[in-house]
């Protein structure tokens, strides 16, 4: 499964970009492992994964069109 990942906030300081395309990602656990292998510094940062605009807390299968985003702690207002 090919997935496009949107990256926000302080995480863009680590990735250097706000969008990322990854391949062979069947589920969100694989996504996290892959991200950490590309960007080890992500392991020092807190972030949540949003799948189709909802934060997920358990491993989730990625099928079809997915909207994936990495969300560091919010700091609006």
């Amino acid at each position, binding site marked *: 499964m090919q997935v496009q990942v*949107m990256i*926000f*906030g*302080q995480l863009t*300081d680590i990735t250097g970009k706000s969008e990322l395309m990854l391949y062979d990602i069947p589920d969100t656990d694989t996504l996290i492992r892959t991200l950490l292998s590309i960007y080890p510094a992500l392991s020092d940062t807190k972030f949540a994964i*949003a799948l189709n*605009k909802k934060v997920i807390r358990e491993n989730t299968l990625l099928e079809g069109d997915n909207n994936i*985003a990495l*969300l*560091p*702690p*919010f*700091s*609006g*207002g």
Partner: protein
Amino acid sequence: MDLQVGKNSKNTKMSERKPKNIFSKGPIPASFIAESIQKHSSQKAIGGHSIFLGQVRADQTENGIVKAIDYTAYEDMALEKMHLIREDIFAKYPLTCMHVHHSLGEVAAGEICLFVFTSSAHRKAAMDACEETVERLKAELPVWGREIMEDDSHQWKVNQ
């Protein structure tokens, strides 16, 4: 005025379920806030307004003094989330109306970045709803503030 609000509120009847836009580029001008208050003079069932204004603070940090905050958001998700917060607040308090505006992009220290405006027949509902809305949106909206220091370095804002 560059803000998108007027346009949106006209469309409210046609698309009640569609999330309203809350974002506009740059600081929220005091004149916009004044106009927004003025617009409510025709709604004579209102007896109390409550307004919260968030202002960018020139924080002194170990990395220097904050001169501006550059806001970014996952806009689609933030608008959906704000829509849910709005529904919750309307279900909980007898409000006449609620308006929320949040800046995107750069807002200098001393300028307004958040405007929350609630109105009701009696003051308590407007005041409580305003406070709860501010607390919830700061905790739940995917918005990030990049603090720009006087030497142009940056750090990421942490909400308390």
